[in-house]
């Protein structure tokens, strides 16, 4: 065991953590009898209620690194980090619910690559499935390493102990109960994350003397710009992030978040498991409702750290001396500040639960895409349903083992982590362009979809390589010499989306379109949307989307 650690666990903390592991495994064993068919194992029987699907949809994204990373970003950049939870999530979640979900759900696809197969053909599916499967399993390994590193810093646990104990637990409960087990555990993890993390902002605001006093403290220690969402985004130089409103609104809000929330199968898979169309539409809206309040347990602790902690936190690369802490340590530091025995155990359980929910999401999505979109599509088209379920169980275990291997690879060379994280961002924006054109424009053709996706992705990789080789090139990508690295992702996504859409449109116009009959159930205008029946206003997705929109606007105005 390491001797330096942020916190020391007591016996009751260890009991709470052990109880959590016992409970998630118990859920996996309990559900093992309900994962015997492909529909059960890969799609949770398509019988999830809107609440279960919605909370699981959000929980799969609420990983421990997300919690700690964005709390650190809030310390570093102030309230601007909230954009990733509000404009960088809410419009996309509502767009998924109201516009895109009908096509996903009516087409009865089991995955996003599966939709591409129906709409554009096998080549688009293969490109999307292979890139998704490869990147998902690598990302899972990177997250696993990063989480083990956190546990080493916070608790002094050896890296291998954290990696194996968490990955084997996830492998057991997903292999036994399939997607249903992953979803049930994600809902449990959602509650634990809130129960473990909500006390920090409550006690922090009490100590600071309320939000107004906290703003004064932050203004004294950093700058008044740290507590304004929009007023400093007029130019690249008037906010701590070095980005402007164009990058936030069009890069983050219109492209990156749309790409992530509407086409990343890791989150979309949870919605596809909903029991009916109305539940599938309500689920992302429920997720959006809760997402708006996640900054309370992520951003606020970062701001409280900025206002209240005696020490000055520094970038990761500078936190090399004993007693120095990086921005990313702000959440565990605040946890240690307020939480004694018991509460500390619950807080650490929340971090472990966040990590495991993210990993289970990665593994279950990887398993489905590998089995249906790669193995069945390319290698073995005519096997029995039982064979594919068996393949799914084995793939779960193998996917976890590849992730563990990646984690050890990252342990040897930390730069791999940066490459893998960058690689993942290459696919999101062009994939959104391809899927949304496929759903909304019936003239889009198979070759148009494939070449748009391919060249959009290629352009994203090229821009990243250009800036990586020559950092001054950022001024051309972000259209300003004052742009900072945070702006790169936004503008890279914007350009790759534009290139994807342009190529898709041009190629589609010179290639033969599909007939209307072939596109029924896949494209706007050719897909009869089933009636919601006799339901009250309060049961309609559009009503709750309106409520979420109003709250979203009010929150942005309050923190302008």
């Amino acid at each position: 065991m390491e001797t330096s650690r942020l916190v020391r666990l007591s016996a009751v903390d260890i009991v709470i953590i052990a109880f959590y592991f016992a409970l998630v495994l118990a859920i996996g064993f309990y559900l093992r009898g309900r994962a015997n068919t492909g529909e059960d194992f890969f799609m949770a029987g398509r019988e999830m209620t809107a609440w279960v699907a919605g909370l699981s949809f959000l929980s799969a994204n609420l990983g421990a690194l997300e919690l700690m990373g964005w709390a650190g970003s809030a310390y570093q950049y102030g309230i601007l980090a909230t954009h990733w939870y509000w404009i960088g999530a809410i419009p996309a979640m509502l767009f998924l619910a109201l516009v895109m979900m009908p096509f996903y759900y009516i087409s009865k696809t089991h995955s996003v690559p599966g939709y591409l197969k129906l709409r554009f053909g096998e080549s688009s599916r293969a490109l999307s499935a292979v890139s998704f499967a490869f990147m998902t399993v690598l990302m899972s390994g990177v997250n696993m390493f990063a989480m083990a590193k956190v546990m080493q810093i916070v608790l002094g646990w050896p890296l291998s102990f954290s990696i194996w104990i968490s990955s084997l637990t996830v492998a057991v409960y997903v292999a036994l109960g399939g997607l249903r087990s992953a979803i049930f555990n994600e809902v449990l993890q959602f509650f634990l994350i809130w129960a473990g993390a909500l006390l920090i902002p409550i006690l922090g605001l009490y100590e600071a003397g309320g939000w107004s006093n906290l703003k004064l403290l932050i203004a004294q220690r950093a700058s008044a710009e740290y507590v304004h969402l929009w007023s400093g985004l007029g130019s690249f130089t008037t906010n701590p992030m070095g980005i402007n409103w164009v990058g936030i609104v069009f890069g983050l809000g219109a492209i990156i978040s749309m790409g992530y929330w509407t086409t990343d199968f890791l989150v979309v898979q949870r919605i596809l498991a909903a029991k009916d169309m109305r539940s599938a539409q309500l689920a992302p809206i429920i997720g959006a409702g809760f997402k708006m309040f996640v900054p309370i347990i992520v951003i606020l602790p970062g701001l409280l750290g900025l206002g209240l902690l005696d020490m000055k936190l520094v970038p990761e690369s500078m936190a090399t001396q004993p007693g120095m802490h990086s921005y990313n340590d702000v959440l565990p530091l605040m946890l240690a500040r307020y939480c004694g025995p018991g509460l500390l155990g619950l807080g650490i359980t929340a971090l472990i639960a966040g990590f495991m929910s993210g990993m289970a999401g990665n593994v279950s999505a990887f398993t489905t895409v590998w089995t249906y979109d790669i193995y069945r599509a390319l290698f073995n088209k005519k096997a029995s349903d039982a064979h594919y379920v068996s393949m799914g169980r084995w793939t779960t275990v193998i996917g976890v083992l590849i992730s563990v291997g990646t984690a050890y690879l990252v342990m040897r060379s930390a730069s791999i982590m940066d490459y893998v994280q960058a690689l993942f961002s290459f696919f999101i924006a062009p994939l959104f362009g391809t899927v949304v054109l496929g759903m909304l424009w019936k003239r889009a053709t198979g070759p148009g979809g494939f070449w748009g996706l391919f060249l959009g992705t290629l352009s994203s990789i090229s821009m990243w390589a250009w800036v990586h080789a020559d950092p001054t090139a950022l001024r051309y990508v972000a259209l300003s010499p004052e742009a900072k690295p945070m702006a790169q992702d936004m503008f890279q996504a914007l350009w790759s989306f534009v290139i994807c859409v342009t190529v898709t449109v041009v190629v589609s116009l010179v290639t033969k379109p599909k007939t209307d009959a072939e596109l029924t159930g896949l494209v706007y205008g050719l897909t009869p949307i089933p009636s919601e029946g006799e339901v009250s206003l309060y049961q309609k997705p559009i009503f709750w989307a309106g409520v979420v929109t109003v709250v979203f606007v009010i929150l942005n105005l309050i923190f302008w």
Partner: protein
Amino acid sequence: MAGKGEISIWFFIGMSLLVNGALICGAGVYEYIDPPLEKVVLFEVHAAIWWGALLFASGLLYCLKFSPRRTASK
């Protein structure tokens, strides 16, 4: 989220809140009776006691509302 005779996911969540709440509240009461030498910030508000009690009460409600016995009789 459970068919006839099945255990609902909400029951599992109730169990988790109930047990964690009891453990945290118990730890808070123990610290109240025998305060530690190194105290956390705002120790005087005894957050473990009321937060643990709140979790325990929420868990109890979930366990009762979604108990397997009630689910089975539906």
